[in-house]
Protein backbone atom coordinates (compact mmCIF):
# COMPACT_ATOMS: atom_id res chain seq x y z
CA UNK A 1 0.00 0.00 0.00
CA UNK A 2 1.61 3.19 -1.11
CA UNK A 3 1.66 6.17 1.24
CA UNK A 4 -1.00 8.84 1.02
CA UNK A 5 -0.08 12.13 -0.56
CA UNK A 6 -2.37 15.14 -0.24
CA UNK A 7 -2.22 17.76 -2.97
CA UNK A 8 -3.89 21.00 -1.93
CA UNK A 9 -5.05 22.84 -5.04
CA UNK A 10 -6.50 21.51 -8.27
CA UNK A 11 -4.88 23.95 -10.66
CA UNK A 12 -2.19 23.18 -13.23
CA UNK A 13 0.48 22.57 -10.59
CA UNK A 14 -1.68 20.21 -8.55
CA UNK A 15 -2.93 18.38 -11.63
CA UNK A 16 0.51 17.85 -13.18
CA UNK A 17 1.95 16.72 -9.85
CA UNK A 18 -0.95 14.26 -9.49
CA UNK A 19 -0.27 13.05 -13.03
CA UNK A 20 3.40 12.34 -12.31
CA UNK A 21 2.64 10.72 -8.98
CA UNK A 22 0.09 8.45 -10.64
CA UNK A 23 2.78 7.39 -13.13
CA UNK A 24 5.05 6.64 -10.20
CA UNK A 25 2.41 4.31 -8.80
CA UNK A 26 0.84 6.50 -6.13
CA UNK A 27 -2.83 7.40 -5.72
CA UNK A 28 -2.66 11.01 -4.60
CA UNK A 29 -5.59 12.86 -3.05
CA UNK A 30 -6.28 16.09 -4.88
CA UNK A 31 -8.45 18.63 -3.08
CA UNK A 32 -9.84 21.69 -4.85
CA UNK A 33 -12.07 24.36 -3.33
CA UNK A 34 -13.93 25.32 -6.52
CA UNK A 35 -16.20 23.07 -8.55
CA UNK A 36 -13.73 22.46 -11.35
CA UNK A 37 -10.12 21.59 -11.99
CA UNK A 38 -7.66 23.80 -13.82
CA UNK A 39 -7.47 26.79 -11.48
CA UNK A 40 -7.15 30.14 -13.18
CA UNK A 41 -6.11 28.59 -16.49
CA UNK A 42 -9.55 27.00 -16.80
CA UNK A 43 -11.00 30.51 -17.18
CA UNK A 44 -8.55 31.58 -19.85
CA UNK A 45 -8.92 31.58 -23.59
CA UNK A 46 -5.58 31.25 -25.35
CA UNK A 47 -2.12 30.69 -23.92
CA UNK A 48 1.09 32.31 -25.17
CA UNK A 49 3.40 31.74 -26.99
CA UNK A 50 1.57 29.48 -29.44
CA UNK A 51 -2.00 30.68 -28.69
CA UNK A 52 -2.98 27.16 -27.64
CA UNK A 53 -6.51 26.92 -26.24
CA UNK A 54 -6.42 26.90 -22.44
CA UNK A 55 -9.42 24.55 -22.32
CA UNK A 56 -7.46 21.88 -24.19
CA UNK A 57 -4.55 22.05 -21.76
CA UNK A 58 -6.88 21.67 -18.78
CA UNK A 59 -8.90 18.92 -20.42
CA UNK A 60 -5.80 16.94 -21.39
CA UNK A 61 -4.44 17.14 -17.88
CA UNK A 62 -7.77 16.20 -16.35
CA UNK A 63 -7.87 13.12 -18.57
CA UNK A 64 -4.51 12.03 -17.25
CA UNK A 65 -5.52 12.20 -13.59
CA UNK A 66 -8.84 10.37 -13.72
CA UNK A 67 -7.45 7.69 -11.39
CA UNK A 68 -6.54 10.13 -8.62
CA UNK A 69 -8.81 10.78 -5.63
CA UNK A 70 -10.25 14.11 -6.53
CA UNK A 71 -12.35 16.10 -4.03
CA UNK A 72 -13.97 19.15 -5.62
CA UNK A 73 -15.70 21.90 -3.64
CA UNK A 74 -13.67 20.77 -0.69
CA UNK A 75 -11.22 22.62 1.50
CA UNK A 76 -8.75 21.75 4.20
CA UNK A 77 -10.21 22.46 7.60
CA UNK A 78 -7.34 21.30 9.75
CA UNK A 79 -3.90 19.71 9.61
CA UNK A 80 -2.33 18.02 12.60
CA UNK A 81 1.30 17.06 12.62
CA UNK A 82 1.85 13.44 13.64
CA UNK A 83 5.07 11.68 14.57
CA UNK A 84 5.52 10.37 11.04
CA UNK A 85 3.24 12.39 8.86
CA UNK A 86 0.14 14.53 8.89
CA UNK A 87 -3.54 14.11 9.71
CA UNK A 88 -5.47 16.21 7.25
CA UNK A 89 -9.18 16.94 7.78
CA UNK A 90 -11.28 18.06 4.84
CA UNK A 91 -14.55 19.96 4.85
CA UNK A 92 -16.29 16.99 3.26
CA UNK A 93 -15.78 15.05 6.47
CA UNK A 94 -12.96 12.90 5.14
CA UNK A 95 -9.93 12.42 7.34
CA UNK A 96 -6.62 11.37 5.83
CA UNK A 97 -3.31 10.34 7.29
CA UNK A 98 -0.57 11.17 4.81
CA UNK A 99 3.20 11.30 4.70
CA UNK A 100 3.53 14.17 2.22
CA UNK A 101 1.62 17.34 1.42
CA UNK A 102 1.98 19.41 -1.72
CA UNK A 103 0.88 23.04 -1.43
CA UNK A 104 -0.20 23.85 -4.98
CA UNK A 105 -2.47 26.61 -3.82
CA UNK A 106 -1.78 29.03 -6.64
CA UNK A 107 -2.33 32.76 -6.74
CA UNK A 108 -4.96 35.45 -6.44
CA UNK A 109 -5.33 38.33 -8.81
CA UNK A 110 -4.67 41.71 -7.23
CA UNK A 111 -8.03 43.29 -6.43
CA UNK A 112 -8.08 46.07 -8.99
CA UNK A 113 -10.57 48.17 -7.05
CA UNK A 114 -7.83 48.77 -4.48
CA UNK A 115 -6.10 50.93 -7.08
CA UNK A 116 -8.76 53.56 -6.57
CA UNK A 117 -7.41 56.04 -9.04
CA UNK A 118 -8.06 53.55 -11.85
CA UNK A 119 -11.77 53.48 -11.18
CA UNK A 120 -12.44 49.73 -11.34
CA UNK A 121 -15.92 49.14 -10.04
CA UNK A 122 -16.63 52.85 -10.32
CA UNK A 123 -16.40 53.75 -13.98
CA UNK A 124 -18.36 51.48 -16.29
CA UNK A 125 -15.84 50.98 -19.05
CA UNK A 126 -12.98 49.75 -16.85
CA UNK A 127 -12.28 46.01 -16.73
CA UNK A 128 -9.43 43.72 -15.73
CA UNK A 129 -7.30 41.28 -17.73
CA UNK A 130 -9.32 38.48 -16.14
CA UNK A 131 -12.65 40.06 -17.19
CA UNK A 132 -11.36 40.40 -20.75
CA UNK A 133 -10.08 36.85 -20.96
CA UNK A 134 -13.50 35.69 -19.76
CA UNK A 135 -15.09 37.75 -22.49
CA UNK A 136 -12.90 36.03 -25.08
CA UNK A 137 -14.47 32.76 -23.89
CA UNK A 138 -18.06 33.78 -23.23
CA UNK A 139 -18.45 36.87 -25.43
CA UNK A 140 -20.76 38.25 -22.76
CA UNK A 141 -19.85 41.48 -20.96
CA UNK A 142 -21.87 44.68 -20.96
CA UNK A 143 -18.68 46.68 -21.29
CA UNK A 144 -18.19 45.24 -24.78
CA UNK A 145 -21.52 43.86 -26.01
CA UNK A 146 -23.06 46.09 -28.61
CA UNK A 147 -20.59 48.86 -27.91
CA UNK A 148 -18.78 50.89 -30.52
CA UNK A 149 -15.22 50.15 -29.35
CA UNK A 150 -12.82 52.44 -31.18
CA UNK A 151 -10.09 53.01 -28.62
CA UNK A 152 -8.83 50.51 -26.09
CA UNK A 153 -6.13 50.92 -23.48
CA UNK A 154 -4.16 48.36 -21.51
CA UNK A 155 -2.68 49.50 -18.22
CA UNK A 156 0.38 47.48 -17.24
CA UNK A 157 1.47 46.95 -13.62
CA UNK A 158 -1.83 47.27 -11.77
CA UNK A 159 -1.01 46.21 -8.24
CA UNK A 160 2.53 45.32 -9.27
CA UNK A 161 5.78 47.24 -8.73
CA UNK A 162 3.69 49.40 -6.44
CA UNK A 163 4.67 49.88 -2.82
CA UNK A 164 1.46 51.77 -2.08
CA UNK A 165 -0.62 48.87 -3.40
CA UNK A 166 1.25 46.55 -1.05
CA UNK A 167 3.10 44.66 -3.79
CA UNK A 168 6.49 45.98 -4.90
CA UNK A 169 7.18 42.89 -7.03
CA UNK A 170 6.72 42.45 -10.75
CA UNK A 171 4.01 39.96 -11.66
CA UNK A 172 6.06 38.73 -14.58
CA UNK A 173 3.40 37.53 -17.01
CA UNK A 174 1.22 40.62 -17.37
CA UNK A 175 3.34 42.27 -20.10
CA UNK A 176 3.10 39.29 -22.44
CA UNK A 177 -0.57 38.86 -21.53
CA UNK A 178 -1.28 42.52 -22.28
CA UNK A 179 0.32 42.24 -25.70
CA UNK A 180 -1.51 38.98 -26.37
CA UNK A 181 -4.83 40.48 -25.33
CA UNK A 182 -4.13 43.68 -27.25
CA UNK A 183 -3.66 41.66 -30.43
CA UNK A 184 -6.76 39.58 -29.70
CA UNK A 185 -8.82 42.76 -29.17
CA UNK A 186 -7.55 44.05 -32.48
CA UNK A 187 -8.85 40.88 -34.13
CA UNK A 188 -12.33 41.57 -32.77
CA UNK A 189 -12.19 45.31 -33.43
CA UNK A 190 -9.85 45.70 -36.41
CA UNK A 191 -10.45 49.45 -36.72
CA UNK A 192 -9.79 50.17 -33.08
CA UNK A 193 -6.73 52.03 -31.82
CA UNK A 194 -5.15 49.94 -29.09
CA UNK A 195 -2.68 51.37 -26.59
CA UNK A 196 -0.42 49.65 -24.08
CA UNK A 197 0.69 51.93 -21.22
CA UNK A 198 3.80 50.40 -19.71
CA UNK A 199 6.79 51.25 -17.52
CA UNK A 200 9.03 48.48 -18.84
CA UNK A 201 8.24 45.65 -21.22
CA UNK A 202 9.23 42.41 -19.59
CA UNK A 203 9.25 39.89 -22.44
CA UNK A 204 11.67 37.31 -21.12
CA UNK A 205 10.14 34.08 -22.38
CA UNK A 206 10.17 31.78 -25.39
CA UNK A 207 9.07 33.69 -28.50
CA UNK A 208 7.75 36.63 -26.43
CA UNK A 209 9.67 39.21 -28.47
CA UNK A 210 7.94 37.79 -31.57
CA UNK A 211 4.66 38.81 -29.98
CA UNK A 212 5.97 42.31 -29.47
CA UNK A 213 7.19 42.53 -33.04
CA UNK A 214 3.91 41.17 -34.39
CA UNK A 215 1.92 43.56 -32.20
CA UNK A 216 3.83 46.50 -33.61
CA UNK A 217 4.07 45.41 -37.24
CA UNK A 218 0.83 43.59 -37.88
CA UNK A 219 -1.62 44.66 -35.22
CA UNK A 220 -0.53 48.27 -35.01
CA UNK A 221 -0.67 48.36 -31.23
CA UNK A 222 0.65 51.66 -29.85
CA UNK A 223 3.13 51.38 -27.01
CA UNK A 224 3.37 54.36 -24.69
CA UNK A 225 6.06 54.31 -22.07
CA UNK A 226 4.31 55.86 -19.10
CA UNK A 227 2.51 54.56 -16.07
CA UNK A 228 -1.15 55.53 -15.94
CA UNK A 229 -1.66 58.05 -13.17
CA UNK A 230 -5.40 58.63 -13.15
CA UNK A 231 -8.56 57.43 -14.83
CA UNK A 232 -11.72 59.52 -15.01
CA UNK A 233 -14.97 59.41 -16.93
CA UNK A 234 -16.44 61.99 -19.30
CA UNK A 235 -20.06 62.78 -19.90
CA UNK A 236 -20.29 60.17 -22.67
CA UNK A 237 -19.14 57.40 -20.37
CA UNK A 238 -15.74 57.15 -22.02
CA UNK A 239 -12.71 56.83 -19.80
CA UNK A 240 -9.94 59.40 -19.82
CA UNK A 241 -6.46 58.26 -18.95
CA UNK A 242 -3.68 60.58 -17.75
CA UNK A 243 -0.12 59.45 -18.31
CA UNK A 244 3.23 60.86 -19.32
CA UNK A 245 4.77 59.87 -22.61
CA UNK A 246 8.16 59.65 -20.91
CA UNK A 247 10.04 59.06 -24.13
CA UNK A 248 9.02 62.48 -25.39
CA UNK A 249 8.75 63.97 -21.89
CA UNK A 250 5.20 65.26 -22.24
CA UNK A 251 2.07 64.63 -20.17
CA UNK A 252 -0.69 63.02 -22.20
CA UNK A 253 -4.43 62.62 -21.81
CA UNK A 254 -6.17 59.95 -23.87
CA UNK A 255 -9.89 59.28 -24.19
CA UNK A 256 -10.77 55.59 -24.56
CA UNK A 257 -13.87 53.46 -24.98
CA UNK A 258 -12.50 50.61 -22.92
CA UNK A 259 -9.72 50.29 -20.39
CA UNK A 260 -8.19 46.96 -19.37
CA UNK A 261 -6.26 46.81 -16.11
CA UNK A 262 -3.50 44.20 -16.01
CA UNK A 263 -4.07 43.06 -12.43
CA UNK A 264 -1.00 41.50 -10.90
CA UNK A 265 -0.37 38.19 -9.19
CA UNK A 266 -0.40 38.09 -5.41
CA UNK A 267 -0.37 35.20 -2.97
CA UNK A 268 -3.64 33.40 -2.31
CA UNK A 269 -4.51 34.56 1.20
CA UNK A 270 -6.39 31.43 2.08
CA UNK A 271 -3.27 29.50 1.15
CA UNK A 272 -1.29 31.46 3.71
CA UNK A 273 -3.66 30.23 6.40
CA UNK A 274 -3.48 26.63 5.22
CA UNK A 275 0.30 26.81 4.95
CA UNK A 276 0.61 28.05 8.50
CA UNK A 277 -1.12 24.85 9.63
CA UNK A 278 2.07 23.07 8.57
CA UNK A 279 4.39 25.83 9.74
CA UNK A 280 5.10 27.15 6.28
CA UNK A 281 5.52 30.92 6.45
CA UNK A 282 5.44 33.57 3.78
CA UNK A 283 8.59 35.01 2.31
CA UNK A 284 9.19 38.78 2.34
CA UNK A 285 7.35 39.06 -0.98
CA UNK A 286 4.17 37.60 0.51
CA UNK A 287 4.36 34.25 -1.27
CA UNK A 288 4.92 30.91 0.44
CA UNK A 289 8.48 30.44 1.60
CA UNK A 290 10.71 27.85 -0.07
CA UNK A 291 13.61 26.13 1.60
CA UNK A 292 15.97 27.93 -0.74
CA UNK A 293 15.17 30.33 -3.53
CA UNK A 294 17.87 29.02 -5.87
CA UNK A 295 18.32 25.28 -5.55
CA UNK A 296 15.27 24.20 -3.63
CA UNK A 297 12.12 26.09 -4.47
CA UNK A 298 9.89 23.05 -4.09
CA UNK A 299 10.86 22.10 -0.57
CA UNK A 300 9.82 23.93 2.55
CA UNK A 301 11.23 24.12 6.04
CA UNK A 302 8.63 21.55 7.16
CA UNK A 303 9.30 17.87 6.67
CA UNK A 304 7.17 16.31 4.01
CA UNK A 305 5.63 19.58 2.85
CA UNK A 306 6.35 20.64 -0.71
CA UNK A 307 5.50 23.55 -2.95
CA UNK A 308 4.74 23.86 -6.65
CA UNK A 309 3.39 26.54 -8.93
CA UNK A 310 2.44 30.14 -8.33
CA UNK A 311 2.16 29.58 -4.59
CA UNK A 312 5.82 30.71 -4.49
CA UNK A 313 5.48 33.53 -6.98
CA UNK A 314 4.38 34.54 -10.48
CA UNK A 315 5.08 31.90 -13.10
CA UNK A 316 4.15 30.85 -16.60
CA UNK A 317 2.26 27.63 -17.30
CA UNK A 318 5.31 25.72 -18.60
CA UNK A 319 7.29 26.79 -15.51
CA UNK A 320 4.42 25.61 -13.30
CA UNK A 321 4.32 22.25 -15.08
CA UNK A 322 8.08 21.84 -14.68
CA UNK A 323 7.92 22.61 -10.98
CA UNK A 324 5.01 20.25 -10.49
CA UNK A 325 7.04 17.44 -12.04
CA UNK A 326 10.02 18.32 -9.87
CA UNK A 327 7.80 18.31 -6.79
CA UNK A 328 6.34 14.90 -7.71
CA UNK A 329 9.83 13.46 -8.02
CA UNK A 330 10.94 15.09 -4.79
CA UNK A 331 7.90 13.66 -2.99
CA UNK A 332 8.62 10.22 -4.36
CA UNK A 333 12.28 10.40 -3.30
CA UNK A 334 11.23 11.64 0.12
CA UNK A 335 8.77 8.79 0.64
CA UNK A 336 11.38 6.27 -0.49
CA UNK A 337 13.85 7.71 1.99
CA UNK A 338 11.41 7.15 4.83
CA UNK A 339 11.40 3.42 4.29
Amino acid sequence: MKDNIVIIGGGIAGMEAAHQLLLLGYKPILVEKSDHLGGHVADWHKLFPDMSPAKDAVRDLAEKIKEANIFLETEVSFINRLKNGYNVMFTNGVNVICKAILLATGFELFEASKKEEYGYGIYNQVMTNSDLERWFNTRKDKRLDGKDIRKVGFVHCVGSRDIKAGNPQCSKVCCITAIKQAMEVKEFFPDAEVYCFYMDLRLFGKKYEDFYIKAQMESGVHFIRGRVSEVSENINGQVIVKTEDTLSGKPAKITLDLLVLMSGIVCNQQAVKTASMVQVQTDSDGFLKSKDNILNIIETGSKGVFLAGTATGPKTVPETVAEARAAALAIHNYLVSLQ
Partner: protein
Amino acid sequence: MGRLYDELCKDYRFKEGLKTCINCGTCTAICPAAEFYRYDPRKIVDTVQRKDDAEIEALLKSDTIWYCGECMSCVTRCPRKNGPGLVIMALRNLSIKMGYFTESEKGRQIYPLTKALNGNVLNYGYCVHPATFAYSDHPESGPVFEWVLNNKEDVYGRLGANYQGKGPGVLRHIPQEDLDELKAIYDVTGGTERLELVEKYSKAKAEEMGMSIEEYTAYTFNHISPGHFNNEQ
Protein backbone atom coordinates in the same frame (compact mmCIF):
# COMPACT_ATOMS: atom_id res chain seq x y z
CA MET B 1 28.90 62.22 -3.49
CA GLY B 2 28.76 65.88 -4.35
CA ARG B 3 28.64 68.76 -1.93
CA LEU B 4 25.24 69.95 -3.13
CA TYR B 5 23.74 66.48 -3.00
CA ASP B 6 24.98 66.07 0.55
CA GLU B 7 23.34 69.35 1.50
CA LEU B 8 20.09 68.16 0.00
CA CYS B 9 20.27 64.98 2.05
CA LYS B 10 20.15 67.03 5.24
CA ASP B 11 16.73 68.43 4.35
CA TYR B 12 13.95 66.36 5.91
CA ARG B 13 11.74 67.01 2.91
CA PHE B 14 14.42 65.39 0.77
CA LYS B 15 14.60 62.42 3.12
CA GLU B 16 10.81 62.04 2.77
CA GLY B 17 10.71 62.94 -0.89
CA LEU B 18 13.37 60.85 -2.58
CA LYS B 19 13.54 57.13 -2.01
CA THR B 20 14.19 55.61 -5.47
CA CYS B 21 12.72 56.75 -8.77
CA ILE B 22 11.96 54.33 -11.61
CA ASN B 23 11.05 57.04 -14.12
CA CYS B 24 7.50 55.82 -14.57
CA GLY B 25 6.13 59.32 -15.18
CA THR B 26 3.10 59.00 -12.89
CA CYS B 27 4.00 62.30 -11.25
CA THR B 28 4.35 64.25 -14.47
CA ALA B 29 1.10 62.75 -15.75
CA ILE B 30 -0.87 64.39 -12.98
CA CYS B 31 1.19 67.53 -12.40
CA PRO B 32 -0.69 70.82 -13.03
CA ALA B 33 2.62 72.60 -13.69
CA ALA B 34 3.81 70.03 -16.24
CA GLU B 35 0.78 70.71 -18.34
CA PHE B 36 1.34 74.42 -18.68
CA TYR B 37 4.99 75.10 -17.89
CA ARG B 38 8.09 73.62 -19.49
CA TYR B 39 8.40 71.42 -16.48
CA ASP B 40 8.69 67.71 -15.83
CA PRO B 41 8.96 66.54 -12.20
CA ARG B 42 10.10 63.09 -13.29
CA LYS B 43 13.12 64.56 -15.04
CA ILE B 44 14.01 66.65 -12.02
CA VAL B 45 13.90 63.71 -9.65
CA ASP B 46 15.86 61.60 -12.13
CA THR B 47 18.52 64.31 -12.37
CA VAL B 48 18.83 64.64 -8.61
CA GLN B 49 18.94 60.87 -8.23
CA ARG B 50 22.01 60.82 -10.42
CA LYS B 51 23.77 62.86 -7.73
CA ASP B 52 25.74 64.85 -10.30
CA ASP B 53 26.63 68.10 -8.57
CA ALA B 54 27.09 70.04 -11.79
CA GLU B 55 23.60 69.09 -12.94
CA ILE B 56 22.14 69.88 -9.54
CA GLU B 57 23.82 73.28 -9.50
CA ALA B 58 22.36 74.00 -12.93
CA LEU B 59 18.93 73.06 -11.62
CA LEU B 60 19.30 75.31 -8.59
CA LYS B 61 20.11 78.25 -10.86
CA SER B 62 17.35 77.58 -13.35
CA ASP B 63 13.72 78.65 -13.61
CA THR B 64 12.73 74.98 -13.70
CA ILE B 65 12.51 74.33 -9.97
CA TRP B 66 10.21 77.33 -9.46
CA TYR B 67 7.35 76.09 -11.65
CA CYS B 68 5.88 73.68 -9.10
CA GLY B 69 2.71 74.76 -7.29
CA GLU B 70 3.27 72.47 -4.29
CA CYS B 71 -0.12 70.84 -4.65
CA MET B 72 1.37 67.45 -3.70
CA SER B 73 -0.70 65.55 -6.28
CA CYS B 74 2.52 63.72 -7.14
CA VAL B 75 2.87 62.42 -3.59
CA THR B 76 -0.49 60.64 -3.79
CA ARG B 77 0.37 58.57 -6.81
CA CYS B 78 4.07 57.65 -6.84
CA PRO B 79 4.43 53.83 -6.69
CA ARG B 80 7.80 54.09 -4.97
CA LYS B 81 6.56 56.51 -2.31
CA ASN B 82 8.62 59.44 -3.55
CA GLY B 83 7.39 63.01 -3.47
CA PRO B 84 8.70 65.22 -6.26
CA GLY B 85 6.91 68.17 -4.66
CA LEU B 86 8.94 67.60 -1.52
CA VAL B 87 12.16 67.28 -3.51
CA ILE B 88 11.30 70.61 -5.15
CA MET B 89 10.89 72.24 -1.73
CA ALA B 90 14.33 70.95 -0.73
CA LEU B 91 15.86 72.17 -4.00
CA ARG B 92 14.28 75.60 -3.57
CA ASN B 93 15.50 75.78 0.01
CA LEU B 94 19.05 74.98 -1.10
CA SER B 95 18.91 77.37 -4.02
CA ILE B 96 18.01 80.17 -1.63
CA LYS B 97 20.64 79.23 0.93
CA MET B 98 23.33 79.16 -1.75
CA GLY B 99 22.21 82.45 -3.28
CA TYR B 100 21.58 80.73 -6.62
CA PHE B 101 17.97 81.85 -6.68
CA THR B 102 18.88 85.24 -8.10
CA GLU B 103 20.22 83.57 -11.24
CA SER B 104 16.75 82.86 -12.61
CA GLU B 105 13.75 85.04 -13.30
CA LYS B 106 11.38 82.88 -11.29
CA GLY B 107 13.94 82.48 -8.52
CA ARG B 108 14.32 86.26 -8.15
CA GLN B 109 10.63 86.41 -7.24
CA ILE B 110 11.61 85.01 -3.86
CA TYR B 111 12.44 88.59 -2.87
CA PRO B 112 8.97 90.20 -3.13
CA LEU B 113 7.43 86.98 -1.81
CA THR B 114 9.67 86.77 1.22
CA LYS B 115 9.19 90.41 2.10
CA ALA B 116 5.43 90.42 1.71
CA LEU B 117 4.61 87.16 3.45
CA ASN B 118 7.01 87.51 6.35
CA GLY B 119 6.07 91.14 6.75
CA ASN B 120 2.49 90.01 7.19
CA VAL B 121 3.40 87.21 9.61
CA LEU B 122 5.57 89.40 11.81
CA ASN B 123 3.30 92.45 11.76
CA TYR B 124 -0.16 90.93 11.59
CA GLY B 125 0.34 87.34 12.69
CA TYR B 126 -1.10 85.97 9.45
CA CYS B 127 0.44 85.35 6.01
CA VAL B 128 -2.25 87.25 4.16
CA HIS B 129 -4.07 90.32 5.50
CA PRO B 130 -6.43 92.89 3.97
CA ALA B 131 -4.30 95.71 5.37
CA THR B 132 -1.46 94.82 3.01
CA PHE B 133 -3.51 93.36 0.14
CA ALA B 134 -3.31 96.13 -2.44
CA TYR B 135 -5.97 96.03 -5.14
CA SER B 136 -3.44 97.36 -7.65
CA ASP B 137 -1.34 94.22 -7.05
CA HIS B 138 -4.45 92.05 -7.31
CA PRO B 139 -6.86 93.38 -9.92
CA GLU B 140 -8.08 89.81 -10.39
CA SER B 141 -9.72 90.02 -6.97
CA GLY B 142 -12.47 91.88 -8.76
CA PRO B 143 -14.57 95.01 -8.30
CA VAL B 144 -16.43 93.60 -5.31
CA PHE B 145 -13.22 93.00 -3.41
CA GLU B 146 -11.98 96.43 -4.40
CA TRP B 147 -15.09 97.73 -2.69
CA VAL B 148 -14.37 95.55 0.35
CA LEU B 149 -10.83 96.93 0.60
CA ASN B 150 -12.14 100.50 0.31
CA ASN B 151 -14.68 99.89 3.07
CA LYS B 152 -12.82 97.50 5.33
CA GLU B 153 -14.17 98.53 8.71
CA ASP B 154 -17.75 98.60 7.43
CA VAL B 155 -17.72 95.36 5.48
CA TYR B 156 -15.68 93.30 7.90
CA GLY B 157 -17.53 94.85 10.79
CA ARG B 158 -20.90 93.99 9.33
CA LEU B 159 -19.75 90.41 8.75
CA GLY B 160 -18.93 89.96 12.42
CA ALA B 161 -15.18 90.38 12.26
CA ASN B 162 -13.26 91.86 15.14
CA TYR B 163 -11.21 93.90 12.66
CA GLN B 164 -8.00 94.91 14.42
CA GLY B 165 -9.81 94.67 17.73
CA LYS B 166 -8.80 93.18 21.05
CA GLY B 167 -9.63 89.63 22.03
CA PRO B 168 -10.45 86.66 19.81
CA GLY B 169 -12.24 86.95 16.48
CA VAL B 170 -11.75 87.31 12.75
CA LEU B 171 -8.89 89.60 11.72
CA ARG B 172 -8.31 90.57 15.34
CA HIS B 173 -5.31 92.56 16.43
CA ILE B 174 -2.69 90.06 17.56
CA PRO B 175 -1.17 91.20 20.89
CA GLN B 176 2.38 92.52 20.52
CA GLU B 177 3.79 89.94 22.92
CA ASP B 178 2.60 87.19 20.58
CA LEU B 179 4.15 88.90 17.57
CA ASP B 180 7.33 89.22 19.62
CA GLU B 181 7.25 85.47 20.23
CA LEU B 182 6.97 84.89 16.50
CA LYS B 183 9.96 87.16 15.95
CA ALA B 184 11.90 85.25 18.57
CA ILE B 185 11.04 82.02 16.78
CA TYR B 186 12.36 83.49 13.55
CA ASP B 187 15.56 84.53 15.35
CA VAL B 188 16.17 81.14 16.94
CA THR B 189 15.28 78.93 13.96
CA GLY B 190 17.15 80.71 11.19
CA GLY B 191 14.09 82.51 9.87
CA THR B 192 15.59 85.95 10.44
CA GLU B 193 18.86 84.76 8.97
CA ARG B 194 16.91 83.63 5.92
CA LEU B 195 15.25 87.03 5.54
CA GLU B 196 18.64 88.74 5.74
CA LEU B 197 20.17 86.32 3.27
CA VAL B 198 17.41 86.88 0.73
CA GLU B 199 17.79 90.63 1.22
CA LYS B 200 21.55 90.47 0.74
CA TYR B 201 21.54 88.41 -2.46
CA SER B 202 18.61 90.30 -3.92
CA LYS B 203 20.21 93.70 -3.23
CA ALA B 204 23.38 92.51 -4.95
CA LYS B 205 21.38 91.31 -7.93
CA ALA B 206 19.43 94.57 -8.10
CA GLU B 207 22.67 96.50 -8.20
CA GLU B 208 24.01 94.18 -10.90
CA MET B 209 20.86 94.77 -12.92
CA GLY B 210 21.17 98.53 -12.42
CA MET B 211 17.98 98.91 -10.38
CA SER B 212 17.12 100.41 -7.04
CA ILE B 213 15.72 97.87 -4.60
CA GLU B 214 12.21 99.33 -5.05
CA GLU B 215 12.47 99.01 -8.83
CA TYR B 216 13.81 95.48 -8.40
CA THR B 217 10.92 94.52 -6.11
CA ALA B 218 8.36 95.78 -8.61
CA TYR B 219 10.23 94.28 -11.55
CA THR B 220 10.52 90.79 -10.09
CA PHE B 221 6.89 90.91 -9.01
CA ASN B 222 5.53 91.95 -12.40
CA HIS B 223 7.90 90.87 -15.11
CA ILE B 224 7.52 87.71 -17.16
CA SER B 225 9.73 86.83 -20.10
CA PRO B 226 8.63 84.60 -22.94
CA GLY B 227 9.70 80.96 -22.92
CA HIS B 228 8.18 79.55 -19.73
CA PHE B 229 5.04 77.99 -21.17
CA ASN B 230 4.51 74.89 -23.32
CA ASN B 231 2.15 76.61 -25.70
CA GLU B 232 4.67 79.24 -26.77
CA GLN B 233 6.53 78.82 -30.04
